[in-house]
């Protein structure tokens, strides 16, 4: 019995070899399909096998605080800056951006397709009480949605506002089944396979800008984190090759991410 347990613990301990790196990323990064393009190239160029933990931004930051991952790649600027300020991360490096979009039923009962600004679109959804699905999981997308409601001076409440508390994909499935409006990022939307009656209705407001940033976990707080590998990965992510791959990534012929690392 003891021997079996010891053997199991050995398996567990050896399954993380020296050249792996644990990176907590947002669901949108994984669902976009970009990870499948970048990870093999990273492994080929640097020898680092990146293990992705696909979680919401809130949970990604928690994993970083606890030292359970070596670095994080997320999209919620205020929370990221607080994370670095509290000493959990060494620094914040901007890598790329895409944009958030408002998706909804194609007959558009709140007429947000005609709205001039995202603020007007949000007000229109709230006043017509059209069904709206919220991530409700403290993710980057959820934080953005809350900031949009705040900007429109609306406290979303009532039967039309449905907070589902799940990842991007599950929330999109819910919205799809209920023909509801939802805020999502362009990459997740384009790669989503269950669109049904939903269509992309409102895009292009500067307030919908979505910046992704890379933060290595601070080795002075967690001595075990693989900071050297995280630095190598950061170099790679801000390299010319990453630029070509990220800018060149297309879903249905549409570019989804724009590289902007300096």
């Amino acid at each position, binding site marked *: *019995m003891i021997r*079996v*347990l010891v053997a*199991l*613990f050995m*398996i*567990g*301990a050896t*399954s*993380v070899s020296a050249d792996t790196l*644990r990176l907590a990323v947002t*669901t949108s990064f994984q*669902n976009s399909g970009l990870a499948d393009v970048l990870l093999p190239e990273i492994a080929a160029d640097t020898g680092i*096998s990146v*293990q*992705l*933990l*696909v979680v919401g931004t809130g949970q990604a930051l928690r994993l970083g*605080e*606890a*030292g*359970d991952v070596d670095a994080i790649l997320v999209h919620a600027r205020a929370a990221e800056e607080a994370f670095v300020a509290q000493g959990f991360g060494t620094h914040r490096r901007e890598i790329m951006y895409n944009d958030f979009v408002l998706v909804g039923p194609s007959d558009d009962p709140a007429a947000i397709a005609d709205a001039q600004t995202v603020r007007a679109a949000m007000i229109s959804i709230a006043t017509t009480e059209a069904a709206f699905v919220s991530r409700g999981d403290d993710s980057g997308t959820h934080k953005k949605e809350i900031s949009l409601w705040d900007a429109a001076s609306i406290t979303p409440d009532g039967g039309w506002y449905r907070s589902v508390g799940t*990842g*991007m*994909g*599950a929330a*999109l*499935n819910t919205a*799809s089944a209920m023909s509801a409006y939802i805020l999502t990022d362009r990459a997740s939307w384009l*790669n*989503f*396979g*269950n*669109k049904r009656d939903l269509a992309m209705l409102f895009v292009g407001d500067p307030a919908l800008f979505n910046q992704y940033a890379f933060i290595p976990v601070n080795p002075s707080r*967690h001595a*075990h984190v693989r900071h050297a590998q995280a630095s190598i990965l950061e170099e790679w992510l801000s390299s010319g090759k990453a630029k070509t791959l990220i800018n060149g990534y297309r879903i249905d012929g549409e570019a989804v991410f724009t590289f902007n690392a300096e």
Partner: protein
Amino acid sequence: MGEIWEGLIAGFWLVVSLDADLVEVTLRSLQVTLTAVVIASAIGLPFGAWLAIRRFRHRRATIALLNALMGLPPVVVGLIVYLLLSRSGPFGVFNLLFTPTAMIIAQVIIITPLIASIAHQAIRDIWADYHDLLISLSTSKIQRIKTLLWDGRRALITASLAGFGRAIGEVGAIMIVGGNIDNATRVLTTAIALETGKGDFALALGLGFVLIGLAVAVNLAIHAIGQTESEGKW
């Protein structure tokens, strides 16, 4: 309806083509769950037997508690195991979080009460029959437990298979402690959750049918090995 049909076809092709990812994920599902079942059975079966023959002060409360623990919510178990194994937790130094070992630990915690509880029920019935015989032969407690475990083996297989059934289909706990990392901790159930999230229902269903097939295959294999339901044996 169309999607269920597409799922069946997707599952069929995944199996026929022996998709490399599918094989890897399936083997990991089996590795994690079978290991968990073996460990949980090693703990739960003797404990169930011991509980059946031993009389002690809080026996009733212990049994009630054990039965209640059968309904242990996997997500809560996952969260607790996560907090224990986290680098900031008490067992963080072992570096077990996000490994198959962490998933095994969580599953053992989830299914041990189930196995022990079913074993206890089964052994109690046998004990009622064997009580006078084993007492009159002045057997030791260990001998009694061994005898009861052996003669109750078929009911105990059912106990272990119930544990297997709960563990192989479990997703809440292993998602939290395993992290669903590709090529490291992804198993069938977490892969299904992932594909559902991408809206790829056909692939998700296909994986689901593979999972169901796997559960059936394991159950048949256990019965074949145990030679239950064959002529001349009970």
